């Protein structure tokens, strides 16, 4: 979530835009596709983005006097990640020895365009220990992309105002939207949800055709409503994709 309220009046009196201070997990393709209006301002999915985190495999390492440049590849593309030498750092991190070609790593940093070469100025580059982090990162990048392009999970509709999401892995929106808040769902979706909630059933839930028959609604309509509810995490599929049950929040 973007920073809000508080007493952060900048000295100039203007309101600072904090959206670009959010840390966003992205794929390298998203970095390549990011739109740059001027200088160091980037937009991904129309949302101002500066701080990003990526996970990728090291393809090349170039050690220079002032920085180390890693070429990272995550399967969606490749990008140079520069880590500037810290003159004050007396000893080099032991993690650095594990950053070798072929190894997976996670980098945090800022997007930069230098000339027409886009790269990431990284504060931190560290090796990935648990390889599940690779899957996790891809799914998190997808989740944030969907949040920004389609709005929060309970579907308050499109255009979350381009609000950047905290990329630190929290399920930010979940708490704010009650489990049975059906605001933003279609009338059919509300009826399907309520029917699933009220109708007697086994723990396998109800088949969409059964629901369609009971409510006298076209199966296609019910399927569409089900998709919306599934996407919103209000129901889940049981024995097959067409059989749903209510996802209880507690």
């Amino acid at each position, binding site marked *: 979530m973007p920073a809000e309220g508080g007493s952060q009046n900048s000295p100039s009196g203007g309101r600072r835009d904090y959206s670009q201070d959010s840390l966003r997990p*992205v*794929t390298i*393709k*998203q970095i390549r596709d990011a739109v740059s209006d001027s200088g160091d301002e980037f937009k991904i999915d129309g949302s101002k983005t500066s701080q990003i985190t990526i996970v990728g*495999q090291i*393809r090349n390492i170039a050690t220079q006097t002032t920085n180390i440049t890693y*070429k990272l*590849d995550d*399967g*969606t*593309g*490749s990008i140079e990640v520069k880590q500037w030498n810290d003159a004050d750092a007396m000893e080099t991190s032991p993690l650095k020895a594990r950053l070798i070609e*072929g190894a*997976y790593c996670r980098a945090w940093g800022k997007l930069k365009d230098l000339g027409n070469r886009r790269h990431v100025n990284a504060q931190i580059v560290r090796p990935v220990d*648990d*390889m*599940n982090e690779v*899957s*996790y990162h*891809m*799914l998190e*990048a*997808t989740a944030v*992309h*969907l949040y920004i392009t389609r709005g929060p999970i309970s579907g308050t509709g499109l255009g979350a105002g381009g609000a950047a999401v905290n990329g630190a892995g929290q399920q930010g929106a979940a708490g704010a939207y009650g489990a049975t808040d059906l605001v933003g769902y279609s009338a059919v979706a509300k009826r399907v949800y309520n029917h699933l909630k009220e109708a007697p059933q086994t723990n396998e839930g109800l088949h969409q055709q059964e629901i369609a028959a009971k409510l006298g609604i076209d199966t296609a309509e019910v399927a569409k409503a089900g998709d919306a509810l599934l996407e919103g995490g209000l129901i889940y599929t049981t024995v097959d994709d067409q059989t749903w049950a209510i996802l209880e929040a507690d």
Partner: protein
Amino acid sequence: MDHPQTPRILAPHLQSFQHKLIRMLGKVVQLRGETAVIDAGGNVDVILNRDCHLALNHAVEIIGKVDASLHVKVQAATDFGTNIDFSAANAVVEATHRHKEIFYD
């Protein structure tokens, strides 16, 4: 120099990725010298190169080319250990196909 994209796929997708460079995460189920079988949503025959060292029952991520007989000719293999959540990994494959816009051209 840019690295080519390597779409993440599973065994059922091989047919549609013939002669293409792909990325596949699977569990090593059989080692036969110059070839191996990995389970990536189904068994896949992979043709190894000299540089890859696969370990039985370990997860391995392979970058390689799908040939006409749907074998994968390995260019690089990365050991992913024994602690991989394949349901998450398979969800990634699904997400990359469903929300292709952020993954592949």
